[in-house]
């Protein structure tokens, strides 16, 4: 069982994805999707991924709401900068942010969140130093950004993935 299905959860997720994409639950579709899901789960075995612990789905839901709200707010802010201010009265710049977590899932999720939010960009991660380089379009206070990234996102992610 474990040899044929090394990642039962992820395999099921892939099958669901397949059914959603095809948009049908005919027996043939399910069979083909199941074969595709099982075969691709063997690929994951070859990748030797670190174990993922996904805890506290409620915390994940809360984080997605925070991110959604932040995306809407910063879309508005960046649109205003582009339309009205251009390059006047504004300074963009880099902030190096010291991170606490080294969990690759936390880092990947943090990179997705930061880059998906307009106005901030994940530029570089240094694994030896465990710091990341953030580029901010409208940079006012560096310390503020360190605080925002750590308390708003990093702490919540560490709650979810450990």
């Amino acid at each position, binding site marked *: 069982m474990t040899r044929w299905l090394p990642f039962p959860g992820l395999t099921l997720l892939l099958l669901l*994805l397949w059914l*959603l*994409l095809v*948009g049908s639950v005919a027996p043939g579709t399910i069979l083909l999707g199941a074969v595709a899901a099982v075969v691709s789960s063997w690929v994951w075995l070859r990748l030797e991924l670190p174990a993922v612990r996904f805890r506290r789905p409620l915390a994940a839901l809360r984080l997605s709401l925070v991110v959604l709200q932040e*995306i*809407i707010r910063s*879309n508005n802010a*960046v*649109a205003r*900068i*582009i*339309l009205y201010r*251009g*390059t006047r009265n504004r300074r*963009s*710049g*880099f*902030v*190096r*942010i*010291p*991170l*606490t977590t080294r969990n690759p899932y936390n880092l990947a999720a943090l*990179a*997705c969140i*930061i*880059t*998906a*939010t*307009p*106005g*901030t*960009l*994940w*530029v*570089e991660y*240094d694994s*030896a*130093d*465990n*710091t990341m*380089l953030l*580029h901010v*379009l409208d940079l006012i206070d*560096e*310390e503020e950004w*360190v605080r925002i990234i750590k308390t708003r996102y990093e702490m919540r992610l560490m709650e979810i993935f450990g």
Partner: protein
Amino acid sequence: MSHAADLPAWVAVITALFVLLGAALAMIGSFGLLRLGSFYERMHAPTLGTTLGIGSVLIASMLCFSVLQTRFVLHELLIAVFMVITTPITLTLLARAALYRDRIEGRDEVPLPPPPPECREDAAREAGSDGDSPRSITPSRQPDDRS
């Protein structure tokens, strides 16, 4: 085959508003790509289109087609998930390439890379830490470590 005539007026209005909002955000993003100053600033502009822009279009699509009931509405959620996962990879790759180029060319506005490992080990030994502890925001750097 067009079902547009079957669409109730209020759904049509809401759908149109969301499509317009999405299109406007994509346009502002493209405009920003032209207008903003440096490469790094320009990279922020297209994210308008890839977040709320695509989101609005997807909401419009879900609303329109689920009212018309021509197909399963959850397709759009998948598109959103794939956008969220794939866009940061491209953007981060571009940003790192630009950073690498600027460091090689020795531009002043670009931050220096963190100090090389041997300097870091020395600093860690002096500080008596194992290197795991969070460091200050601006780690001490050798003034000549960029040649």
